[in-house]
Every structure is written in structure tokens, then in C-alpha cells.
């Protein structure tokens, strides 16, 4: 009898195991609650797997981009706005992974662990973006049906003012042939190319080579280079876009001379080039209000002299993310300090749970001196080569690129920034197989910038 009584304590072990299990269950409810409650399968908030009950998403001026009215999701009345802001706002089914309606769904539906979805039946949480819907609409129009992305931000505060990705679609009239199309017109339609895209940088990368040269070759700005239309490196040669004759470092940057930068890259070598590329934050992902950018890739570990030359002018295997290029422009503009772009405004209702802060991107290390020198180079590009008439009233600095892609039209690139104190805006334009930087990307950039100037930031 005494034995039995003592042995009864084995039940305690079971009780303890059960309590541990309950504790773990409660913990997993707390830890995963927002993800689970925001699931597309939750019929409290989704009807037929379309989001129907969530707070509004507004642009910086309070324009409603999407909201719930009488149990239905109502979008902005302008088709242009809907299409231009689709990737930032996110679709109703959750295919666009970096969209606010997907990333912040738990917040939008008003979920929290303590009240679950109880409050959300009557009141959900609104989210205000930093974007200007009208500017986004203008950007999409300017892209004129080409694939690619346009992103502009305030390089002093980090606020994204414009972020457009194409191809896009109208969420109210979603094309029915997205999954069956074979022409490729919907390629990557659910991707926000500014955040999730990587492209061959072409001549835009010459800025990186220039930074490396400025930091490693003391008298590079006084050097003279000779361009005969091509340059022999190792076992082959790099062809230039023209015959530039004898040029200075600055002029080489202006006319985007391949000979100058291929030669410099080969001279600098793998290690120094790689170090500069790393110190500028390529290869690191950043969080744009919770949306993680895709890492840019730069690998010259197996590159010979010729390959190194190609890498120096942004060809070879290098792929860059447009948001990374925007941050580089921001760093040059802001005396070496790159603000991380952010998309969501913290109006106090979202709390600190969300990583909204953005702040300075510590991955980008650029000395104020070099930043100033490079800024002057980029200003010279516009002033002495592209022409200030292409950017009226903007005091613009920048660099074009026409990245060659095998078998297809080149990518048209432009990125740069305004030096106006009252207009601290940086921009990146990347048109996928869209043509030449100078002729195709610059007009898009200018149109967006003029609209921003007109509406104010």
C-alpha cells in the first residue's frame, strides 16, 4: 500500500510534461499568431482567398489606394494609380510577397495576440505609405510599357517617393492569361523589380570602379588615358562605345569610356575592386520597411585580366539590385551617409513592432571626401555631357548605363540625384531590355522628377 502511494508520484511527471506542452503551445500561439491569423486560408479576413477585411493603405497625401468598405475591398478609382502602386500595396491574394498587404497583413487586419480578430470586425488598422501615388502613376506612364523599375527617394530622410515595377496589372481586372501566357509579357509580374530584381549594371558600375580608383590610385584624377576604340587586356580586348582619343579621368566618366575603366579595373586588381564593392554594400540585403532586397552579386575571384576589365565596366557576371543603386546615389549625394529607403510611415498606430526605422545603412561605407569628389564627377556628367537641359531646374548629377545582355536589347539605366537643398531626391531608372541609358532612361527619370518638383516633396 505504501509502495503504491509512493509510486503514484509518477503521475506528477505526466502532469509536468503536459504543462510543458501547454506552455509551448501558448508560446507558439504568441510567436506565430500574427502569421497564422493573417493566413490566406483565414476566412475571417479572406473571402474566396481574396483579402476582404483589412485596414486602408494610403499614400503620403492621404489618398486611399485600397480600403475595405461594407465588407468589400475597394481600390483607388484610377486604373493608372492602381497599376503603378500594385507592387508597393500588394495584391489581394498575396502573390506579391513584398507588398504591404502581404507583409503587414497581420497589422492591417488589426490582429493582436490578446484580442485576436475581435476588434478587427469593426475597426482595422490603416497604413500610410511614403509614396506619392500621382508620381508613381507618372512613372509608369513614362516607362511606356517597358519592363523595369523606377524608384525615387528623399536621400536625407529615406522616404520612398516613387516605386514602380513593370510589368504590372490592374488588380480590378487581373488578366486571366497570366499563368498560360507564353510570350513572356507577364514575366516576373508578381516581382517588385526595385526590391526583388537584379540586372546587369553596365556603365552605371563605372562609378564603383571610379570610387575604387579614387581611393587606391592617388593621382588618378590627373592621369591622361588614351582611347583608340578598344583596349587589349590579357588574351582579348574590350571594345569601347567610341573613339575618345586622349581623355582625363573626368572626361572618361563623362563619355563613359570603356577603355578608361577597363584599364583601371585591370590595374586595381581583383582584391581592391572586391573590397570597394563590398564596402559599398553590394552583396548585402537591406530591409525596406520589412521587404528584404535581393543581394547584388559581384564575383571576380576567377576573373582573368580581360574579365576584370569587363567587370570594371559593369559587364561580366555582375548583377545589381536597383534599390542598391538608389542607395549608392543617396550615399554620394548625402556626403557618404546612405539612408535606407523606407516605404511605410510610422504614424504611431503601428507601434515599434515593425521595423520601420530605416535609418542609415551601415553597410555602405563611403568617406565624405570621396563622396564629394564622385558627386562632382556625376555633376560634370550632366553639366558637360548629357546637358542640364535634360534636367531643367534640378542641378542634377548622375550616370547612365546601357547594359549589354546576350541576344537581347540592352538594359537602359540611369541613376543620380539633385543637389538642390530644397529637393534632396535621388532616383534610379532601370528599363529591362529598354534601350540606351541616355535616350531611354533619362527622359523617364526627368519626367518623374519634374512631377515631383511640381507636386512638392
Amino acid at each position, binding site marked *: 500500500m505504501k509502495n503504491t502511494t509512493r509510486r503514484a508520484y509518477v*503521475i*506528477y511527471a*505526466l502532469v509536468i510534461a503536459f504543462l510543458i*506542452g501547454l506552455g*509551448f503551445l501558448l508560446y507558439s500561439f504568441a510567436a506565430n499568431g500574427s502569421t497564422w*491569423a493573417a493566413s490566406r486560408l*483565414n476566412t475571417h479576413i479572406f473571402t474566396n482567398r481574396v483579402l476582404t477585411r483589412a485596414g486602408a493603405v494610403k499614400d503620403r497625401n492621404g489618398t486611399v489606394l485600397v480600403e475595405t468598405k461594407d465588407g468589400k475591398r475597394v481600390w483607388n478609382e484610377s486604373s493608372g494609380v492602381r497599376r503603378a502602386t500594385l507592387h508597393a500595396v500588394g495584391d489581394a491574394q498575396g502573390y506579391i510577397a513584398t507588398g504591404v498587404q502581404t507583409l503587414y497583413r497581420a497589422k492591417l487586419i488589426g490582429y493582436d495576440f490578446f*484580442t485576436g480578430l*475581435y476588434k478587427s470586425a469593426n475597426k482595422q488598422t490603416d497604413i500610410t505609405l511614403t509614396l506619392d501615388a500621382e508620381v508613381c502613376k507618372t512613372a509608369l506612364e513614362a516607362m511606356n510599357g517597358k519592363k523595369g523599375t523606377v524608384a525615387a527617394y528623399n536621400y536625407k530622410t529615406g522616404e520612398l517617393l516613387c516605386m514602380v515595377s513593370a510589368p504590372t496589372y490592374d488588380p480590378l481586372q487581373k488578366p486571366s492569361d497570366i499563368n498560360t501566357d507564353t510570350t513572356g509579357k507577364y514575366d516576373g509580374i508578381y516581382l517588385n523589380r526595385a526590391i526583388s530584381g537584379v540586372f546587369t549594371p553596365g556603365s552605371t558600375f563605372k562609378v564603383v570602379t571610379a570610387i575604387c580608383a579614387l581611393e587606391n590610385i592617388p593621382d588618378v584624377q590627373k592621369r591622361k588615358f588614351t582611347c583608340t576604340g578598344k583596349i587589349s587586356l590579357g588574351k582579348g580586348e574590350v571594345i569601347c562605345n567610341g573613339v575618345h582619343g586622349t581623355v582625363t579621368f573626368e572626361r572618361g566618366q563623362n563619355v563613359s569610356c570603356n577603355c578608361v575603366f577597363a584599364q583601371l579595373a585591370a590595374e586595381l586588381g581583383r582584391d581592391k575592386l572586391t573590397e570597394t564593392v563590398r564596402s559599398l554594400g553590394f552583396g548585402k540585403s537591406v530591409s525596406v520597411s520589412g521587404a528584404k532586397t535581393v543581394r547584388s552579386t559581384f564575383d571576380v575571384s576567377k576573373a582573368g585580366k580581360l574579365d576584370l576589365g569587363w567587370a570594371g565596366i559593369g559587364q561580366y557576371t555582375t548583377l545589381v539590385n536597383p534599390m542598391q543603386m538608389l542607395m549608392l546615389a543617396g550615399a554620394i549625394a548625402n556626403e557618404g551617409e546612405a539612408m535606407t529607403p523606407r516605404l511605410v510611415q510610422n504614424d504611431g498606430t503601428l507601434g515599434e513592432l515593425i521595423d520601420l526605422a530605416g535609418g542609415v545603412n551601415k553597410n555602405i561605407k563611403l568617406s565624405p571626401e570621396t563622396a564629394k569628389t564622385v558627386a562632382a564627377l556625376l555633376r560634370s556628367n550632366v553639366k558637360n555631357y548629357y546637358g542640364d537641359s535634360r534636367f531643367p531646374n534640378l542641378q542634377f548629377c548622375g550616370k547612365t548605363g546601357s547594359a549589354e545582355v546576350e541576344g537581347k536589347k540592352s538594359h537602359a539605366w540611369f541613376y543620380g540625384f539633385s543637389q538642390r537643398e530644397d529637393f534632396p531626391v535621388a532616383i534610379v531608372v532601370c528599363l529591362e531590355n529598354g534601350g540606351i541609358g541616355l535616350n531611354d532612361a533619362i527622359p523617364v527619370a526627368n519626367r518623374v522628377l519634374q512631377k515631383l518638383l511640381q507636386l512638392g516633396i
Partner: protein
Amino acid sequence: MSRQTKTRRLQQRQHKYRYVDRGFILLLLTVFQLFSAVPVVFEGGSFYWQNGAQFLGYIAFEWLYVAVMHYGFKKVNFELEFIAFFLCGIGMTLGASVSKASQLKQLCAIVLGVIVYDLLLWFLKDVRRVMQVRLPLAVLSLLGLAGSFVLIRFSVGAINGAYNWIVIGNGLFSIQPSEFVKIAFVFVGAATLDKLLTAKNIYLYIAYSIGCIGVLFLMKDFGTALIFFFTFLIIAFMRSGDVRSLLFVSVAAAVGAVLVIYFKPHVAARFAVYRHVWENVDTTGYQQVRTLIYSVSGGLQGLGIGNGRLRYIAASTTDLIFGVICEECGILLAFAIALTFALIALYAVKCARTAPSSFYAIAACAAAALLLFQTGLNIFGITDLLPLTGVTLPFLSQGGSSMICCWALFAFIKASDIRAYPKQFKSAVSGGALA
């Protein structure tokens, strides 16, 4: 120890148990049940009078039961009964709300359960009587289980992949024989008069257990088989104290399980979704994923009865009832219910310490452990912390067989409480003779 000291100690022990005011608790219970019945009876502006009548009937039954037991049979304490009434009430309320139909069958099952409970309690009063029926019950239950397997195998066939339902009268009634064998399993296992509890006298019980668990395996009712195995371990340990042998048995069982999985891959396939439910949201992970989504949607206080969505998923009032409680009544209440089963187990241990015979002690611990283990398998199974085995949540899941079994198991716990048999208790205290 002298007789006087023994008596004094017993009185002291008795003093430690404070009686909970019956009337007050019953009143609280009634208020709770009336409040939770309102949204069901008047759901959506309609008036479901059958449900209303039924809830009133249930509450009346509770009062009547306590009155009859107290004044008629001089019973003094009703803690277990109140807990069971509380749990059954919630199960019935949600069942009525989800099905929008009368819960007459469920109410009958509860009443039947209470009757079985009191009959068993009466029967357990005499340990010699218990010993007499032990062997016949063992043989009968094992034969019954095997017989029903054969019957099901060649008539109804498998339901949800397991041969554990006997269906009578074109689906009017369905019985789960394994639930009734659970009662016999605890009864047979605990029934012993041996003063010296050693390994020797449990061999027959081992053989009986192997028989029961073997048939359950053939029935493909792995969840119940696991419950039986676990109960066997508890009983065998309490009877023999032989940790080494039990470790050996456990290892052998684990090896057996591995072999089954190796030679019968379809068994393993049933559990393949474990920890991968989010990759199979529309197939094998369907129920678990919905349970998780809607459980957290309820928050701590719930969305209110009738406002949930898990109720529309298959098995919402049986296997998934815990998730429905989370969503509609709140995580707080759901976890309080889960804790209830842990407290019942602690209560059983406390009772076992003062039980008049080792039979009562073993039976109480085994029954409480079984209920707690089953609760764990259910709650953690539907939330993917353990593999889903499809066992019910005691007292709350809809189903007659399970309901009657739970009440019967409560009888084993109650029987170990020294206040369960007031007359015996009084004579024991005054006479000082305790078995």
C-alpha cells in the same frame, strides 16, 4: 501505531478536505450555462426552442442529481461531478450551436454516463466483488473487442481509415467498442488484493494488454492503442515498481513501432504530415492548419459563440473542439479546461495517498493518467505539436461512447476519495479499521 493515533490521524486528514459549498457552486454553474446558452438558443434572431428546452432540462438534471445524491444517498462532495457537468455543458452548447440541431442524443449520453458512473461507483465499493468479476471481465472485454473488430471488418468497413465504429440502425447509432474496453482495461489492471506488489503477479495483465493493444492495431486505431499502452505502463509501474522491466517493454514497443513503420509504409505515411502541416494545407494538414489559424484568431477572450469559422471544418465538434473553444470562447477558457485535466490528475494522486486499498489508488491514478494523456494527444495532435491520432477530448467532444467512458473513468477516481462512501468512511473512522 495504536488504534487511537490512527483514528486521530484519519480525522485530521478528513479535516484537511474542506467541503466546497454545493449550492453555491451549482448556482455558479447554472448561471454560466444559462449565459452560454443564450447566444445558441437565440442565434441569428431565431428562437431554437428545442435547444432551449434541452439546456433547461440539463440544468434541472444537474440540480436533481445533486439533490437526490445528497438527500437520498447522503453523498457529501461533488467536485468531480461539477467538473464533468461543466465540461459536458460546454461541449453540448458548442455542439448545439454548430449543428443548429437538437442535442438530444448528447444529452442522453450524458445522463447515461452519469448512471454508469453511479452504478460503477456502487460496484467498486466492495473490493471482493471487484476481484470476482476481474477475470470474467478481462475475457469478456478482450473477446468483445476482437469480436467487434471481426464484425466491423466484414460489415461496416473502415471509417476514416480505422475499423473502430459499429453502426446500428442505418446510422442512427454508432458505437465505439474501444471506449468501453478502456473502462475494463483500467478495472482489470487495477484489481488486485496482493499485499506485496511485485513483478510476478502482473504477467496475466501483460498478456491481456498485449491482446487489447494488438486488436486496436488491427483496427488501425493507433491513437487509442497508444492510450492503452500508456495506461498499461502506469498500471504496471504502480503494481510492480519495476522500472527496468517497463523500460524493456517500452523499448520493445518502440522497436515494434519502428518495424511496423518499416514494413507498412502506409502507416508511416499517415504521420508524414507531422510538423509539415503548412506544406499540405489542403490535404493531410487541412484540419491542423485550420485549427491553428482559428485558435489564434479568437484571442484570449474569443470571438463569441457562433462567430467562429473553425466550426465549418469537418470534425469541429469532435476532434477539433479545443480549437473551436479557443476561437469562440477564448484561449483563456480553452487553457483553463486543459488545466482542469492536470488538476484532476493531481487530485487523483492526493486521493490515492489516503485510499482505503491499493486497488482504489491504482485505479484512480490510471484513470486520471489516461484522461490526461488522451487530452494531451488531442490538444497537441490537432495543433501539430504531436502527430495527429484522432482521439477525442474527454467530456467535450461529441459522441456517446466516449462520454460514457469518461464518466466511468471518473468513477474510478471518485472511488479513491475517502469521502466517496460516507457510511464506510464513518465506520472506518470510528472503528479505526481500514483495509
